[in-house]
């Protein structure tokens, strides 16, 4: 990482601290500059798109970090079922316990967009890529292709982890039922 990238990263981290403290709407460019330890003019040099661009970057970065640690946690799994079950249990817990996210959702959910919309497309692609090797190892039913299975699973996993609906994702039994029953029934060979 060169110096400029490192500084952008530090600014992004400072941005996250501001949002954690004041929320998105109330974090002004002055607040962000102060937290990053620089003048507003300098801040604009690193983020010519201004406050929106910076907030955008902070959100996307937070999403990226969330999934990085999720993939790290479940990467060691020895079966497709295990990946999905551990993934859902972990992700659900992490989202519930994510104070900053929960606070933004409570007070200013629209502040997450459009950054969140952009992040979702990327997250979907990454999850598909993550699932493909597992599907290749463990096989899919005839009549289903690996890309289609990965696409469908990625969609359903993201949907469930963010919005459990009627499922109790804190209960490993329910998660197993969801994964082995609903999600994998059509996929598995």
């Amino acid at each position, binding site marked *: 990482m060169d110096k400029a990238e490192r500084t952008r990263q530090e600014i992004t981290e400072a941005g996250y601290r501001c949002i954690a403290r004041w929320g998105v709407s109330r974090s002004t460019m002055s607040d962000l500059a102060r937290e990053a330890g620089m003048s507003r003019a300098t801040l604009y040099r690193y983020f010519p798109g201004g406050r929106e661009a910076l907030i955008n970057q902070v959100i996307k970065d937070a999403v990226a970090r969330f999934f990085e640690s999720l993939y790290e946690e479940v990467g060691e799994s020895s079966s497709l079922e295990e990946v999905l079950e551990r993934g859902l249990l972990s992700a659900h817990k992490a*989202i519930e316990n994510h104070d900053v996210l929960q606070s933004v*959702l409570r007070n200013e*959910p*629209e502040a*997450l*967009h*459009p950054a*969140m*919309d952009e992040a*979702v*497309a990327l997250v*979907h692609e990454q999850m598909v890529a993550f699932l493909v090797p597992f599907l290749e190892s463990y096989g899919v039913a005839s*009549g*289903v292709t690996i890309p*289609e299975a990965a*696409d*469908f699973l990625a*969609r*359903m996993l*993201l*949907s*469930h982890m*963010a*919005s*459990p*609906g*009627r499922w109790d994702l804190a209960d490993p039994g329910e998660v197993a*039922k969801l994964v*082995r*029953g*609903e*999600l994998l*029934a*059509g*996929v598995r060979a």
Partner: protein
Amino acid sequence: MIARDLKSPPREGSLATIAHLELDNRSSSRIRIVDAALAEISEVGVTRMTMEAVAARAKLSRATLYRSFPGGKDPILLAVAETELARFWAQLARSLSAADQLREALVVAISETTSYIQSHEAFQRVLSLEPELISAHLEFQSMDEILLTASAITAPFFARWLSSTDSLRAAEWATRIVVSYLLTPSASLDLSKPEDATYLVDRFMIPGVLALKDDVHQAPQSSKTTKQLALGGK
């Protein structure tokens, strides 16, 4: 703004009001205002919709407008949303009642909902001008509420073939699918087309629904009977 109010499932009273609105009472100020607001949103979206513009479209004075909707813009938006939702559910209910098999019912639920959304001018306008107004409602807890409401409304239509628990799960799943493809369109599947919806239902939903039915937690049933019930007849 509109968020909080969309969250509650339709109350008896408000559905009765909407039913009244649907009757041919075009002279009613209220229905003219709701129609005008819908038309205005179809053109400029929600944020840029003004009371003045709605009044002009409805050919009513602002005073009349405020008499029917003393709270101003937000109650009008709520009335628009409730009216459109009621119209949608009525249409979907008719189609779902006509389905002969579970498979058909799932395909209808998915393809008709997708198709309705795709051709809904006001919704598409908001989606193109101010997408955050829509996507904010389709994630996290807001989405949970949509899942609960949508599944409660459509589950009875699956009850011909599934237990009430399984019907709720299937209805919730169908809702997730519609929303997922709405937020993240697919290059290969257009779920407004029955053939594409059928592809998805056959490949993933039916096996999943059957697997949940045959789950050990429930009273054991013969798989054959289960499959027949789901795919074959009554």
